[in-house]
């Protein structure tokens, strides 16, 4: 479930509340205002569990929405990092940056020069030549291994 889903639920909840308060049958209330939507997003992203629990709890208050909540929950269960639109965007930005830097590191792997011969290509970090391979302590090599083991 993301912030938009929550906003939709809250919108429904507000419609229910207006029915109860007015004692009259009404159609859905007006769509949530931009300000209210921004407020919900702020809650989702920046408040502690108790405040967020209150927001979600409000959304869940109408029992007929429970099925919808469950549907949305299952819909998003396969991607835990989509908890919010903002978080997903940040995850994507960081992943792209990690990929970019990993590629650059790979390209620079033998663009340094040997400590013995400044014309001979070597690792810019440990300064070993390619035939000899990296030194055990080479940080550039360690990062390349980490990048290629699939965790990035």
């Amino acid at each position, binding site marked *: 479930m993301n912030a938009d889903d929550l906003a939709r639920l809250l919108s429904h909840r507000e419609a229910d509340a207006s029915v109860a308060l007015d004692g009259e049958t009404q159609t859905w209330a007006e769509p949530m205002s931009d300000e209210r939507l921004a407020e919900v997003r702020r809650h989702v992203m920046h408040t502690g569990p108790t405040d967020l629990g209150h927001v979600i709890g409000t959304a869940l208050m109408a029992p007929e929405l429970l099925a919808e909540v469950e549907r949305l929950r299952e819909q998003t269960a396969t991607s835990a990092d989509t908890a919010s639109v903002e978080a997903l965007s940040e995850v994507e930005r*960081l992943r792209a940056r990690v990929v970019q830097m990993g590629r650059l590191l790979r390209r620079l792997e033998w663009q*340094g020069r040997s400590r013995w011969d400044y014309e001979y290509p070597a690792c810019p970090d440990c300064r070993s030549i390619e035939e000899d391979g990296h030194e055990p302590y080479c940080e550039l090599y360690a990062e390349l291994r980490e990048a290629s083991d699939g965790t990035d």
Partner: protein
Amino acid sequence: MALTEDGIVAINHELNGTNWPSQARQAVIDLFEQIAAGEAEVERLRARVAELEAVLRGVEWVYMAWRGTGDTLVVCPSCTAKAPKHAPDCALDAALRGEE
């Protein structure tokens, strides 16, 4: 990343006084766990970016013999510009500045 015991207690406290079925309570807890997992992934990636930045920063300038003269210079291994300035299109400089 799972919610802590305290986190679950806080959520249940928030939900106390309602007559919601356990399914609704679980949905809320699951949602918190999704959010926590998303935040954990952001933290992991930030740490990874910091690691890569540190290594790239460490190889930003290298000794190199300049073609022709054989003079030893300190240059960027990516754009081969002399320190301390990169070429305008240097990929290493862009990466260190957080640009695409």
